[in-house]
């Protein structure tokens, strides 16, 4: 081969390398672009849900109208009606309103406003018979209008608030009576038919309880199963079949585990429907093979010389594995488990099958309380027509992504931390 030919060959090689690099960068950029579009979309439509719009009203805590006095016990206060003083305050916004429009005036705040008043009074009993300025949650429709999620310049019959309500709202706004504050109730409240009241409290707790049940079951079982299969089980037909099945189970569509849970846990064992207990059981079945596989890989990656070193010192097999192999496999084991759990956290279909799709308006406390979970909440709200649920859907996705990122980065952190320690 002369130098000319060699040069041509080299040039070909360089351009092939360049082409390959270009395609690689191109595909990565494309992936990043799509991810950015997705995140941008979710964040722009979801961020506003973390704030809520309130109307500052002058409320007269008139003891005659409330039918209470300084000495009324809390129980009686809770039973009394704060609607009248609220309505008085709202009607005061436009004293000239014709009778027909009065109902529209009352509707500009959320139906929760009267309970907000009650909660305020229970904390501030010294305000009896005083006139106090209190901020109350606006109705969902005006909330959406204020946040710019809903256009104002469309015909009256095509929006959910009237021209009259719009006029009152604008008046209040020009007097700085409309304020925005952080939406704590979004994190505290359970689901509700009223978008301005609906929150992820129930599904957040539900998700945590479900994942907790899943973790408690799947991690010890999966970890020990992996140790046994990898370190102790004899290599024969039976263990081979088990190994193949574990791999197959990891690939089974999750909805199948939902059917299994429905058939076994609900219909046979009569465990309580819609609960984190059953959800966790189902997800544990699904997660088990997804934990066993990375745990086995982590154990396999430990150099056999460590095992032999311990055995040669007269350690038993269990000692050799538990004292020396497992610590080295731990980072891989933990990160595998966390990634398995984060998959479980985003799982929807199997939980719908075991009834976690029910409308839950109380925040659960125990794993046997009916509850919702975050991904199913996303599914439920995405089906709702009200504009207010759209931002809630995206906001819930943001929370879900937050937890997923948190879990996955802790997996990476753990892996790096322990790997550095021993190498």
């Amino acid at each position: 081969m002369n130098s000319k030919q060699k040069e041509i060959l080299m040039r070909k090689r360089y351009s092939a390398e360049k082409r390959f690099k270009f395609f690689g960068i191109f595909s990565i950029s494309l992936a990043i672009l799509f991810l950015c579009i997705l995140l941008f979309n979710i964040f722009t439509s979801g961020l506003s849900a973390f704030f809520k719009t309130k109307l500052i009203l002058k409320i007269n805590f008139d003891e005659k109208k409330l039918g209470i006095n300084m000495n009324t016990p809390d129980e009686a206060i809770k039973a009394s009606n704060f609607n009248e003083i609220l309505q008085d305050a709202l009607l005061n916004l436009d004293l000239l309103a014709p009778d027909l429009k009065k109902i529209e005036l009352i509707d500009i705040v959320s139906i929760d406003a009267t309970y907000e008043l009650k909660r305020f009074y229970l904390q501030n009993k010294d305000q009896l018979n005083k006139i106090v300025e209190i901020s109350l949650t606006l109705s969902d429709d005006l909330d959406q209008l204020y946040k710019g999620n809903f256009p104002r310049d469309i015909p009256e019959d095509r929006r959910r608030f009237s021209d009259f309500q719009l006029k009152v709202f604008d008046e209040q706004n020009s007097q700085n009576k409309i304020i925005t504050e952080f939406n704590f109730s979004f994190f505290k409240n359970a689901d509700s038919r009223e978008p301005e009241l609906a929150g992820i409290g129930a599904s957040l707790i539900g998700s945590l309880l479900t994942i907790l049940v899943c973790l408690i079951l799947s991690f010890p079982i999966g970890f020990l199963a992996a140790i046994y299969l990898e370190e102790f089980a004899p290599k024969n037909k039976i263990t081979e079949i088990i190994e193949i099945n574990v791999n197959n189970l990891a690939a089974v569509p999750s909805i199948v585990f939902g059917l299994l849970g429905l058939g076994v846990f609900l219909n046979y064992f009569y465990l309580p429907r819609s609960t984190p207990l059953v959800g966790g059981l189902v997800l544990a079945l699904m997660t088990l093979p997804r934990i066993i596989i990375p745990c086995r890989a982590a154990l396999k990656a430990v150099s056999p010389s460590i095992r032999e070193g311990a055995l040669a010192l007269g350690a038993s097999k269990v000692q050799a594995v538990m004292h020396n192999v497992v610590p080295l496999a731990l980072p891989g084991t933990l990160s595998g488990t966390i990634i398995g759990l984060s998959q479980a956290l985003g799982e929807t279909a199997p939980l719908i099958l075991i009834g976690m799709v029910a409308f839950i308006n109380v925040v659960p406390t125990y794993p046997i309380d009916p509850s919702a979970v975050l991904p199913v909440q996303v599914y439920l709200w995405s089906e709702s027509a009200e504009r207010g649920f759209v931002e809630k859907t995206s906001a819930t996705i943001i929370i879900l992504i937050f937890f997923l990122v948190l879990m996955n980065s802790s997996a990476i952190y753990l892996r790096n931390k322990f790997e550095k320690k021993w190498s």
Partner: protein
Amino acid sequence: MINEKIKISTKNLNVFYASKQALFDININLKENKVTALIGPSGCGKSTFIRCLNRMNDVIDICKVEGSIKIDGDEINKKNLDVNLIREKVGMVFQKPNPFPKSIYDNVAYGPRIHGLAENRESLDNIVENSLKKAALWDEVKDRLNQPGTGLSGGQQQRLCIARTISINPEVILMDEPCSALDPIATAKIEELIDELKETYTIVIVTHSMSQAARVSNDTGFFHLGKILEFNSTEKIFKNPDNKLTQDYITGRFG
């Protein structure tokens, strides 16, 4: 010569990996408090042989060991023997340093702990210190006993593994190419160490280096294709071997 007591003797030792025979009728006697070097080309069965002496071949499912291996006259190649007791008596140092994922201290203390050799913390401290001193590592690590053993250099790691081995007071130390992963300076240190250790222990060392075998050992065995072709004093083997193949191997004509 006096003190020529036989520590280990094998008789008609045959080893199979599944159906493949790796060792053929090995009959040798290893002397107490002497260093025996085993040499021979790769794959001739040196590792297989020394792994018989502490029953490490039990770990390999397909490996079958037949014949007699006696230590101090007691048969160790029989079924219902607790292998952990043999391994307490016959320690092993591997080709690649393999410190445990623990601190330097815990690496050395591991054996005494699992065998319950120390009554209290003080006596454990003593064992660790003495073992590290015998392994000529104490001065280098005494200020960082709590740091991971994996943080040491290769040669230090190998001496840590030697300290770990002698921490449980074995009678025999098997070394399978202990210097093949080390640089010449670290190798020299280990060789020096072997010279000291033979006062107390019976040592069997597999090595690829002829000069190392010549320097450290009293007796040398030459393995070839699973057979022991020649076993004699090191002096004899290197000066005037009986076997032509031995001659060729030590002069580097094949291997």
